[in-house]
């Protein structure tokens, strides 16, 4: 029966010799380490380069470890290139956007899952239809909506005369304040909860908002974390939309600032790597804090 290669480690391996198990294990670790080297090298390279002095540019092939460790690149990126401001903007936009996103999608998801209201199926079909429209199709007209938004930025009632929401936090936050995807996820989640919970609360005279707040929300920790972390990461990493709607560098988010940094400090890769490091660390931290929910979200949905 057993060829030397046969059987995974979980398999009853009575017929396999100890050596073949050891060889197999070594081979598996070798493959894992090889894959690790490939996935990790760009990160390691980024981190090491962020601490190199400019004099290290002379080496070719380039050196791995800085000849002298310096935080000068980080300081330059942080203050001279105004990354402190970009950092605050990114944090603000991603946090506020995520709070709104979770609140609006949870309320809508709950209503679609549990409440009986007019036009429910039609409205849900509408939400799902929007989920299927790819972003390049809507981004150009969405930009025009923002520019021509009535009564914003000097616009009149029909949206003429001013710059609309351009160069304001509104343009950064409102378009990411809700989404079909979160509504869908929350709806799926609430459908798994037993309906007796709310029926009991309803008979006790609780209003619908009270049911949502006091009964449903405490049960939704995992769903809130999943949706929240996925959306925070999405907003934090998004580039094109903030790039389009902000011209004033006081409103730049990190990704846009990073783009500016790469052109501003074009021949100075170490400063670019320092900026990249600053833009990358927070989302990695959020990931490690919420890893459990994050992985579940990916696997649940097939999206990231």
């Amino acid at each position, binding site marked *: 029966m057993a060829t030397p290669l046969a059987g995974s480690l979980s398999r009853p391996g009575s017929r396999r010799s100890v050596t073949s198990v050891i060889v197999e294990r070594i081979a598996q670790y070798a493959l*894992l380490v090889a*894959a690790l080297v490939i*996935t990790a090298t760009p990160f390691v390279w980024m981190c090491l380069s962020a601490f190199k002095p400019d004099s290290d540019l002379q080496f070719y092939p380039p050196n791995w470890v800085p000849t002298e460790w310096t935080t000068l690149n980080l300081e330059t990126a942080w203050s001279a290139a105004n990354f402190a401001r970009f950092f605050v903007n990114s944090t603000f936009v991603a946090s506020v956007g995520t709070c709104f996103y979770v609140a609006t999608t949870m309320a809508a998801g709950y209503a679609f899952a549990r409440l*009986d209201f007019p036009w429910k199926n039609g409205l849900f079909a509408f939400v799902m239809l*929007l989920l299927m429209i790819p972003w390049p199709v809507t981004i150009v007209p969405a930009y*025009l909506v923002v520019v021509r938004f009535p009564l914003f930025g000097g616009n009149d009632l029909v949206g003429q005369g001013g710059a609309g929401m351009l160069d304001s936090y509104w343009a950064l936050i409102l378009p990411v304040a809700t989404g079909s995807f979160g509504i869908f996820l929350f709806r799926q989640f609430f459908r798994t909860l037993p309906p007796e919970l709310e029926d009991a609360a309803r008979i006790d005279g609780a209003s619908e908002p009270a049911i949502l707040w006091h009964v449903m929300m405490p049960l939704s920790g995992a769903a809130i974390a999943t949706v929240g972390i996925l959306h925070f990461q999405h907003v934090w990493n998004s580039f094109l939309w903030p790039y389009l709607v902000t011209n004033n560098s006081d409103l730049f988010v990190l990704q846009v600032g990073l783009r500016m940094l*790469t052109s501003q400090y074009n021949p100075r890769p170490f400063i670019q790597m320092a900026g*990249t490091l600053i833009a990358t660390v927070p989302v*990695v931290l959020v990931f490690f804090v919420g890893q459990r929910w994050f992985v579940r979200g990916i696997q649940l949905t097939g999206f990231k």
Partner: protein
Amino acid sequence: LPPDERGLAGTWPSGGTLTDQAPARAAIVAPRMRRRWWRRPQAYYGLLFVSPALLLLLVFSALPAVGGLVLSLTYYDLGTAPRWAGLENYREVFADGLFWRSVVNTLYYTAATLVPGLVLGLLLAQLATRRLRGVVFFRTAFYLPGLTSTVAMAVVWLYLFAPLGLVNGLLYPLGLPRIHWFADPNWAMPAIILNSLWRGIGSTMLIYIAGISGIPQSFYESAWIDGASRWQTFRYITLPMLRPTTFLLFILHLLGSFQVFEQVFILTSGGPAWATTTIVHQIYINAFLKSQFGYAGAQAVLLLVVLAVLSFVSFRMVPTEVEGK
């Protein structure tokens, strides 16, 4: 009062007839058989709960989606009022050599990322589901590239693939010539493709891991009893059982790679000599650099049609035997 206003101006909530329910429920359980929706708390709270989300979706998704279609039938440069163009934009797109160039580039990118991405992701998932010490650490590490932003990693890529960067530095001892990755029309796209493969592999792996853990262990056990080799169990159990997962990933990657933009924007801006311009990059250029919003709108609508057709065809190609299992 007209019938529609009678209910709103009526006696709710205090005037509801008391039933055998608690007084607070009087308004809910109205005596009439068919209650108007505004008399049912579920109905108006339901509408209340969905309205913030739906209003935002209406303004920032639905209006742009419909607007894009209308826009594509006009000439519009944001400065002057839109002029009706009919199908003229579409005619021009079909005659636009640069657009066809971007289609070819997008197909090249898709062909080179789609299947290799799936195969590598499956291989990693196979490795990362072995019962080995520390395998969770490896899993996390494999996922990290997908977590970071496209822009940040593109900036790292610019430096990695710079003429005097690490990649050329690693090729140097092998005696290979120095490649000017982003300045050479033949090498710019491969550098972009490597970036996308590197970034996408982690999430592919995670989804495959979810698929693999859904396969009943008993399938493998009976195969072992029958003396199947590891290759045979992979070929005749794992692969067929993962077909729905593979299909999902295939569609997601296909749709995703037709929309590739940010890597191109940061790494090459479509160059050199338009060797890396993609469909979405053309949409970006026409809208935001040339202010030809109608023309960009037409390209976007064509992209939507292509994506819809691709999804439709893919769903038709789903092997039906998958459903049976």
